[in-house]
């Protein structure tokens, strides 16, 4: 019992630190660890991981300098779609068998790996600060260039659609930011920093919808969830402290390989 709790705290810590360093949630690492290494069944593992998403979101957004980058208006409107997607995701997850969910998770891991590899050079979209920001756009002060950047939301059906999809997928135990952020940045005109900070705050709302339901169903084992949450909180703090001194590029390549390997293991496990 103690060994399980210690290993979950450790796993949470690693997932939290990696999440903070890579700018993604730690769920994509935590779910397979809880499921395959600790030996919890998939639904329990994903339910515990989903609770830690709330912790990651809260501790990340409370970090100095983050909340200034959040577009609260855009976030709230997109939350309509992520939470609705969450409801759909819950129904699907409860109906599906573990091997199906494991295969789905393998796909998610592979997508995360590809997204990470394809975005090794992240860049901000710079625009004239005099443009009309529209209903859901905004302005922010770019700390790198010192200039004021204005942006507006383009192709809003794409933003709404990807939010719905991210909400559905997040019920597998992840935040879903890894899907939303690149799309909002690449297709909808939202600067990278804004998309990341807004998504980080938003994911907690979706995670709450899933967690309320999972909690009532008894899928959240309290002492194991507590261990994971405490680990993630400690790991995130550690990750932010390390972020300034780490080589994000090398770490991204390494972790993308880990995720791809993990995806293959998952497909193999699900096929047995």
């Amino acid at each position, binding site marked *: 019992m103690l060994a399980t709790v210690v290993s979950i705290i450790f796993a949470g810590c690693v997932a939290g630190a990696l999440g903070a360093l890579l700018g993604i949630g730690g769920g994509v690492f935590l779910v397979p660890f809880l499921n395959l290494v600790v030996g919890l069944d998939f639904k329990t593992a994903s339910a515990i991981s989903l609770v830690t998403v709330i912790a990651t979101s809260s501790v990340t957004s409370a970090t100095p300098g983050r*909340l200034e980058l959040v577009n609260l208006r855009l976030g709230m409107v997109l939350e309509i779609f992520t939470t609705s997607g969450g409801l759909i995701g819950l129904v699907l997850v409860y109906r599906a068998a573990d091997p199906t969910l494991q295969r789905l998770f393998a796909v998610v891991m592979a997508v995360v790996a590809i997204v990470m590899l394809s975005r090794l050079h992240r860049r901000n979209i710079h625009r004239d600060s005099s443009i009309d920001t529209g209903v859901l756009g905004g302005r922010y002060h770019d700390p790198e260039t010192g200039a004021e950047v204005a942006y507006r939301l383009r192709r809003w059906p794409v933003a709404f659609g990807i939010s719905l999809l991210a909400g559905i997928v997040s019920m597998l135990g992840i935040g879903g930011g890894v899907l939303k952020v690149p799309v909002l940045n690449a297709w909808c005109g939202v600067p990278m920093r804004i998309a990341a900070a807004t998504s980080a705050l938003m994911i907690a709302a979706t995670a709450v919808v899933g967690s309320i339901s999972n909690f009532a169903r008894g899928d959240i084992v309290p002492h194991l*969830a507590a261990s994971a949450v405490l680990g993630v909180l400690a790991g995130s703090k550690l990750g932010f402290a390390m972020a300034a001194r780490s080589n994000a590029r090398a770490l991204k390549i390494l972790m993308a390989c880990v995720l791809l390997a993990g995806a293959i293991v998952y497909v193999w496990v699900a096929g047995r």
Partner: protein
Amino acid sequence: MSDKDLTRLEHQIRRLLRVGVVLTAAALTGGLVLFFAGMSAATFLLDAGLILLMAIPVARIVASLADSIRRRDRLLVWSTTFVLIVMAATLIKSLM
């Protein structure tokens, strides 16, 4: 929408997140210690910590709703209300 209004909400949210995280961590740590000490209060503290954690985003959205009503920002009033309804509906359905 003036910047001053927005930062006021941002300050509220930041304070809420920080207090929420600290209280959650305290309750969960205490609960885990009591769990291994074999004390029955552990269940209460662990559940309280998890419920507290889940309450953080809910409180954040309630704060956004209050702020949007104050600023008469209809789009935000509707979107926050919608999300709160989804949460409430999930809770009600789960309890049934």
